[in-house]
C-alpha cells in the first residue's frame, strides 16, 4: 500500500515537473511572440510617422499652389473667390416635362430617351 503511494507520488512529481517545464517554454514562446509583435507595431508606427510627415510635406500649400499653376490648362484651378458662393434660389427647379414621362411607362420611355 505504502509503496503504491510512493510510486504515485513520484509519478505526480515527475508529471508536475514536466507540466511546469512545458508551461515555462510556452510562456517564453508567447513572450517572444509578443515582443516580435510589439517591435512590428513600433516599426509600423515609425513608418506611419514617416508617411504622415511625407503626406504633410507633399500637401504643403506652397507645393499645391505651384502644381495648380503648372496644371492650370488641365485643371483650371483658381483661388477661392467670394463670387463662388451660390444662393439657394439660383438653383433651378427641375422642369416638369422631364418628370412627366417617368410617371407612366418608366422603362420604355427612358431607354428610348437614352438612345436619343
Amino acid at each position, binding site marked *: 500500500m505504502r509503496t503504491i503511494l510512493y510510486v504515485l507520488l513520484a509519478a505526480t512529481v515527475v508529471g508536475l515537473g514536466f507540466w511546469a517545464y512545458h508551461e515555462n517554454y510556452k510562456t517564453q514562446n508567447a513572450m517572444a511572440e509578443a515582443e516580435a509583435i510589439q517591435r512590428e507595431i513600433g516599426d509600423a508606427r515609425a513608418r506611419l510617422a*514617416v508617411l504622415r510627415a511625407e503626406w504633410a510635406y507633399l500637401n504643403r500649400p506652397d507645393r499645391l499652389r505651384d502644381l495648380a499653376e503648372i496644371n492650370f490648362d488641365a485643371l483650371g484651378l483658381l483661388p477661392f*473667390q467670394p463670387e463662388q458662393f451660390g444662393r439657394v434660389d439660383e438653383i433651378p427647379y427641375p422642369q416638369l416635362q422631364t418628370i412627366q414621362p417617368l410617371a407612366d411607362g418608366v422603362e420604355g420611355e427612358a431607354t428610348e430617351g437614352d438612345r436619343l
Partner: protein
Amino acid sequence: MIRTPLRPLARILEARARGENPDAIERENLRLRHEGLRDSDRSRAESRLFVLGLCFFAAFATIGVRMGVLASTPPVEPRTSSAGVEIATQRAEIVDRQGRLLATNLETSALYAQPQTMVDPARAAQELARIFPDMKVEDLLEDFTGKRKFLWVRKVLSPEQIQAVHDIGEPGLLFGNREMRLYPNGALASHILGGASFGREGVNAAEVIGTAGVEKMFDDRLRDPAKAAEPLQLSIDLTIQSAMEQVLASGMGLMNAKSAAGILMDVHTGEVIALASLPDFDPNDRPPPPTKGSPSDSPIFNRAVQGVYELGSTFKIFTVAQAMELGLVNPETIINTASPMQWGKHKIRDFKNYGPTLSVEKVIVKSSNVGTARIAQQIGAERQQEFLRSLGMMEATPLEIVEAKGGKPLLPKKWPEITTMTVSYGHGISTSPLHLAAGYAMIANGGTKVTPTLLRQGMPQYGERIISEQTAAAARQMLRHVVTEGTASFGEVSGYEVAGKTGTADKPKETGGGYHKDKVIATFASMFPVSDPKYVLIVTLDEPVNTMGTEARRTAGWTAVPVAAELIRRVAPLLGLKPQIEPSRLADIKLTSN
C-alpha cells in the same frame, strides 16, 4: 526508554546496612535524572534554533543576492505589457486647428568617427568630402589622423547619405540614432513655430529642445512623455496662413516695402487664425541670431509680435470710443479742428486742413490729429492711461510664443498734456501690431477685453467689459464710414462690409531725435463683416511706397489698405464667410387651391 529507578533496592539495603540515609540516594538519582532531561531539552532547542537561523539566513541571503543582481545588471524593459503599446516619440507633434501637421519628428542617424579603429583614414576623408560637398578633405583628414578618439562628423543624415556612408565600408565610421524635428510646410508659420535643435547629445540619443516660438514656450509640455501621443493643437489655420503669407509677400513687393506683418484674429475667442511676419525663414534650418546690425532687420524677428511701432492714427478710435463711453462726446459733437494747433512750443498738424470744425465721426473718417488731440484733452492723462492699460497696451502681450515677452510697448516716461494729445493719435507710444489687434477685437466684439492666444479654444472669452455695447456699435459705425467715405476707400470688399482705420506714422530715426521724412509705417486695422464682426485683420507695411500713380504715395490708404482688401478677398471665403449680397427677388409664389 529505560528509566533508572530512583530508589534501587540493592543500594538502599546497602546504605541501610551502613546506617546511612537512603533518601540521599533518591535525591542523588533525582538530580541525575533532572540533569539528563535538561541536557536533552537544551540540545533540542539548540537544533531548533539552528534550523530557524538557517531559514532566516536563507531568506536574507535571497533578498541580498536579488538586490545585488538588480543593482548590478542593466535595466530591462518588461517584455509584456497589457497597456497599449506606445512607441513614445521624444516630442509631441504640433498641428493646426484642423489637425494638419505643422511639426513632427523623423528618425534619422548621426554620423560619428572613431579614428583609432579606421582602416584607411585618407580614403574615408576623401569619400566623406564627396558625399558632403560642404566638408573639406584636409579638415577631415586632420581630424582622423589626430589624437582624438571620438568625433562627430554630421548631426543628421538623410537615408541616401546613410547608404552612401555605409558604402564606404569604413569600420571607424559609425551611426547613432537620432530623432529630428521636421516642419513639413517649410517657411509657413515659421515665426509661430520657432524651431528646435539638439540639446544634450549622447551617442545613441539626443535631446530635442525648442529654441523659439511655441516650441520653446511649450517645451516642457511637448517633451512630457505622458502627453507625447497627444499633439499640441494651435489656433492657426494652415490654409489661411498660407494665403496670408502669399498675399502679404506680393503686397510687400508691389508696395516696395521693407517688411510686412499681418494678423488675423477671431474677435470672440481671441484665437489668432493667421500671423505672418515677412521676410521669414525656414524653421528646419533656423538662421542664427544676427550678431551685428539691428535685430529687427533679421528674418527671425517677429514683426507682428516683437516689433513695437508707433502705429499712428489707428489709435484714434480708442480715444474717441473712450470719450463716447465717458459721455464727453457723441458722434455728432462738433470739434474744433483748425490746423495747425499750437500747444506750448509744439504744433499739431493734420495731413491737410479739414476746415475749422468737424463732427466727431468726421474726425475719425478724415483722420484729423487736431480733432483727436482736442478730444484727448477732455479725457485727460490719467483716464487715458487707465483705458490703455485696461486694453493691455501697457505691457507685453501674453501670446504663447517666447518672443511675445520681447514685444514690450515703449511708453512715454512722463505723461504731460502734450503726450496725452500725441498718444491720442498714436504717436509717442509704440506697441506691437498684436496689441492693436486685441484693441480692435474689443471694439468688434461689443466692448469686452480679448486676450490673443495661439491655442485652439472651445468657447468665446468673456473678458472684462471696457466699453458699452452701444459705444462699440457707434465706434464700428465710424470705422465703417472710414472705408465707405474716408481714407480707406480701397478697403471696400463687396459683400464683406469691411470697417477699419488707417494709420501712417513717420519712422523715428534710429539715432534718436526726430522722424524720417520719407519713411513710414503704414497700418490698416480692420474688422469684417461690420454688422456682426467675426475677425480682426491688421496689416502693417514697413517703409512702403506706392509708385503706381504719377507720384510716390506712402500713406496707408494707398499702401496697406489695398493689400488688406486683397487679403480679405482671399481669406474671407476660406473662413467660410458668405458674402452678404442683397438677396434677389424670390420667385413669385401664388396661393392656389384645388
